[in-house]
């Protein structure tokens, strides 16, 4: 029941803020949205706490019938196992914090109730996603969060860049969703049900099923897992389908924090973990997940080092951290993936909100090259940013250290080629992460200010309505690591997660058996990254330019984000538009329509004459119809 309240309260808040706006007025509309979010967060965290206390998950809560066709019977129902409730607690809590922050950040905007309506709607969709009890409801939440993400990227719809970014985000996500939908269909074909319980209990029975594609027979579960993972790649901005995430930063900053960092983009990881009983039977798919995750982590890490937009740096770091989560998921270390997901939600939301505070102070300036020396004027924001940064960089005792190290340990412990690839990428990326985080902080807060004079004069610390959420999140960034470590991935992890996650073999036990040099490597890399950043941006400020000159091709390659946008534009976007024009102008108008239109034109002349004479005479048409009927009847009589 609490779960139901947690899920539905944001929906009510959203409707009140959106539809009720004309009747409630601006302040009340915002207030309603926040109030229902408080209800949701209290209910969400309480239901999680109750489950932790009792240890026995309640049965899924059946709400209503949805589709019921043949054996395809997804219902509206809420799953209440540990995995779901951990996510519910995190999502509702972080969302509440960001609701409060937005009340300050968006105060000067003209259509704030619309904003609040959207983020409440988002929270509802996200909670539907994490509490789904079947694949189709998960897909409902999945597409729902995608929709709200589109609406919020496009929140300032007068901006052409926002429009383009929003469309890009939606379409790239839809490419993933297309495969996800077909994956659902294939799961239904194999299991003849799409409820999680039904699928999970039948996995063993169908492990040997084959499915033929490209003339070759594949294990059916592998195909399903790959299809679902492609969906996850779209949502979680993994390599090949990552291009939308950086552009999505066109949206207001609280959105970047909530949707494009803490919750929605992690949905892909959540989905893979949710499907763990199936994924476990698809070893090839698991390797693919790890490889894609590791590649993304490294790729985004390199790109993050050279970005100059404060939000884009953090966006690429999100992409990279999601890659880490997939490394863990692909190795079967699902609890570690979720551990990192939760930690990441807190410190990444903190980083984004702190960045928002900086942007707010700098009169909407986002280019780090035009900042500098802000720490005196924004002391609280500065401390917050450093805490978030250290957590991201994986420096103990901040939360990122515990989960990121566990992921890298797990990849080392896998003792195979894929694991080794994950370990190398993970360790190198740990260094890169520390480097760009330090670069971000140093360029923004230290040195001398490079901002124009009139901007400098207006720099001010944010109001408390924005700072308190930062403080709350910073507690999470500091504590969630060592507080949750024992429970989430420690000895008793199996008892904690119960049946909600199926961990294969002894992945989790092997975490502690990694040799100390391998376990220390990521921390050493991170400290090295920090040191390099300090050298380049404090002690030898001319070094970055010199290096860029010396390694120009590499520099350009990374600066242009490995040329993915250009490649996709040349391969998909422009040919598609050309093809569209061609199909219309040539295919439809010339070829298919040519012959019959010629006929029509011939008769048009004749009928135009008739119409002129009779101005569309009904008599004529009645006559025609009569003739037709006569002909019809005579035909009958004739064959009779």
């Amino acid at each position, binding site marked *: 029941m609490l779960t139901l309240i947690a899920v539905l309260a944001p929906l009510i808040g959203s409707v009140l803020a959106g539809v009720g706006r004309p009747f409630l007025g601006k302040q009340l509309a915002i207030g309603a949205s926040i109030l229902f979010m408080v209800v949701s967060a209290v209910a969400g965290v309480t239901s999680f706490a109750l489950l932790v206390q009792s240890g026995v998950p309640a049965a899924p809560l059946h709400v209503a019938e949805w589709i019921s*066709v043949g054996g*395809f019977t997804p219902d509206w129902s809420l799953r209440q196992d540990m995995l779901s409730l951990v996510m519910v607690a995190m999502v509702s809590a972080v969302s509440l914090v960001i609701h409060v922050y937005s009340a300050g950040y968006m105060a000067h905007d003209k259509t704030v109730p619309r904003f609040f309506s959207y983020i409440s709607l988002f929270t509802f969709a996200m909670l539907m996603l994490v509490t789904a009890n079947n694949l189709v409801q998960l897909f409902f939440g999945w597409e729902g969060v995608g929709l709200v993400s589109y609406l919020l990227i496009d929140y300032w719809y007068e901006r052409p860049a926002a429009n383009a970014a929003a469309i890009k985000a939606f379409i790239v996500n839809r490419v993933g969703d*297309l495969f996800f939908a077909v994956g659902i269909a294939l799961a239904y074909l194999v299991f003849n049900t799409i409820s999680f319980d039904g699928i999970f209990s039948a996995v063993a029975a169908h492990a040997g099923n084959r499915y033929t594609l490209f003339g070759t027979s594949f294990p059916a579960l592998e195909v399903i897992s790959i299809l679902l993972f492609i969906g996850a790649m779209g949502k979680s901005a993994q390599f090949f389908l990552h291009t939308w995430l950086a552009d999505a930063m066109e949206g207001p900053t609280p959105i970047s924090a909530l949707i494009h960092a803490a919750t929605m983009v992690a949905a892909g990881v959540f989905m893979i973990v949710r499907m763990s009983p199936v994924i476990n039977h698809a070893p090839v798919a698991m390797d693919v997940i790890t490889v894609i995750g590791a590649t993304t982590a490294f790729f985004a890490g390199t790109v993050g080092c050279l970005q100059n937009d404060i939000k884009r740096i953090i966006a690429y770091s999100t992409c990279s951290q999601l890659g880490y989560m997939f490394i863990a998921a692909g190795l079967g270390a699902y609890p570690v993936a979720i551990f990192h997901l939760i930690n990441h939600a807190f410190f990444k939301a903190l980083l984004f909100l702190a960045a928002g505070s900086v942007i707010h102070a700098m009169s909407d300036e986002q280019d780090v090259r035009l900042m500098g020396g802000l720490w005196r004027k924004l002391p609280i924001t500065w401390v917050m940013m450093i805490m978030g940064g250290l957590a991201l960089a994986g420096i103990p005792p901040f939360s990122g250290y515990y989960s990121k190290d566990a992921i890298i340990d797990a990849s080392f412990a896998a003792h195979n080629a894929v694991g080794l690839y994950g370990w190398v990428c993970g360790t190198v990326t740990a260094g890169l992460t520390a480097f760009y985080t330090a670069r971000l902080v140093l360029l923004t807060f230290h040195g001398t200010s490079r901002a124009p004079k009139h901007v400098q004069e207006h720099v001010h610390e944010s109001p408390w309505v924005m700072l308190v959420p930062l403080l709350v999140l910073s507690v999470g960034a500091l504590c969630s690591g060592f507080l949750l470590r024992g429970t989430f991935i420690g000895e008793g992890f199996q008892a904690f997660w119960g049946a909600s996650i199926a961990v294969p073999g002894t992945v989790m036990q092997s975490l502690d058996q990694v040799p100390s040099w391998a376990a220390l490597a990521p921390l050493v890399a991170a400290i090295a990254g920090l040191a390099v950043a300090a050298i380049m941006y404090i002690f030898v400020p001319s070094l970055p330019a010199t290096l860029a000159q010396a390694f120009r091709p590499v520099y350009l390659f990374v600066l242009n984000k490995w040329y993915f946008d250009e490649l996709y534009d040349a391969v998909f976007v422009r040919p598609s538009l050309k093809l569209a024009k061609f199909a219309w102008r040539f295919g439809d108008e010339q070829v298919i329509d040519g012959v019959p239109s010629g006929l029509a034109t011939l008769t048009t002349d004749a009928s135009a004459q008739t119409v002129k004479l009779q101005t*569309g005479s009904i008599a004529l048409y009645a006559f025609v119809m009569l003739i037709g009927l006569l002909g019809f009847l005579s*035909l009958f009589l004739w064959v009779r």
Partner: protein
Amino acid sequence: MNQAGFPILSLITFLPLVGVLYLATLRGDEAAVARNARFAALWTSLVVLALGIYLWTAFNPAVAGFQFVETVPWLTGLEVQYRMGVDGISLFLILLTLFITPIAILSAWPIKRRVREFMIAFLLLETMMVGMFAALDFVVFYIFFEAVLLPMYLIIGIWGGEKRIFAAVKFFIFTLAGSLFMLLALVWMWRNAGTTDIVTLLHTPIPPRIQMWLFIAFLASFGVKAAVWPLHTWLPDAYGEAPLPGTIMLAAVMSKMGAYGFLRFAAPMLPQASAAAAPLMFTLGVVAVIYVSYVALAQTDMKRMIAYSSVAHMGVIIIGIFTFTVEGVEGALFQMLSHGIVIAGLFICSGILLARGETMALSRLGGLAQKMPVYAAALMLFSLANMGLPGTSGFIGEILVIVGALKVNFWVSLLGAAGMVLGAAYMLVLLRAVLFDKYTRPELAGLKDLTAGEYAMLVPLAVMVLWLGIYPSSFTHIFDAPVTAMVQAHVAALAPHTAIAMVSK
């Protein structure tokens, strides 16, 4: 006689004619006649809708066969009877017709010229369409099927846009040419079975060799009506040039006549031919989805873009029907219902701009979300439904067809679902061009948001979109039984032949 106790189907079918008679007797100055004609037509359609809802409540969804059957001897020497009856499939198409008609009549309010004649044509159209869906005799069906053309031809030809005559003639020729083939098929089947009773025809086996020819004839006829690629090119012209109410009826209901024909005649009466032609139909459906979506993407006119999106969705419906799985066929049916409502909403949204004297050229619109937020929300909702977002009506049909198609072939499923991506592409382009960015012209800032009449059209449609998306079971229950029976009959009809084929090998 039937469970309603009175000939309810005939009443629903011919009640609009009473309205026509009343309209014909209206006298007075032109403005008064126009006003009375509008209200008379609206009230007539609402009364008919009320009867339709009664029909729905009285209908027993557990029965697969026809209900409310009425039989009156007609051309006795020819074994032709006037027979009416509904099963779950035709019932919900009748409900769709009855639901859309009052909304279309409301959308005719801005029409100023020859209002009485327009309303007469419109009520005639309603009679013909309901009669066609309710007919249980092939001859009766054929007469209604053809007769639908006439009022629609008049509506396009007299009240249409600039190129109305061209569009009307093209529409007429295409559909008439198609139905002549059906007439031939009808005659053959009538000779074969000795009756034109549809229920008897459904159980009269036809040699597979002949089935192929009959199927081609049906394809020509229903394919044109359903705008199956490449028989679709009359559609953008007709949709584009027809007056708004005409476009709504064409897109929402008349395009379903073809799909209904496939479901009622082609598939169950010609099982072998349908099974043999399924790959062809899948190809046509997939091409429609992909190729036509591309064409839609290239459009520069709002109404035409919506028109092409309609063709793309018909492709999904065709794929669903020919999967011959319960999921696929019900998905196709659901998509028909959803598409009817969504496309009506989209065309009304375009009509709202026309009524404010705006152009349909996408390059000359933009920024409307600022001053018309409710309009923006409505257009957004229908667009999302059109691209199949879960929670809206469009999703249910789409996912069911994907699931049904996957039971047949992976690629049909994947390519047929490609509309998810391509549909999103052109709908988002449309939304951006109409609602977002800055005003392309200063006059756009002066547009007013929805009027009461426009609310009256859009709110019922929006409610239906959400109802269908959130609780589709209230509708799938109607056609569960007949579809299951149909799929079973199809499988059973194919089984002995395949068995024989295997033995003979």
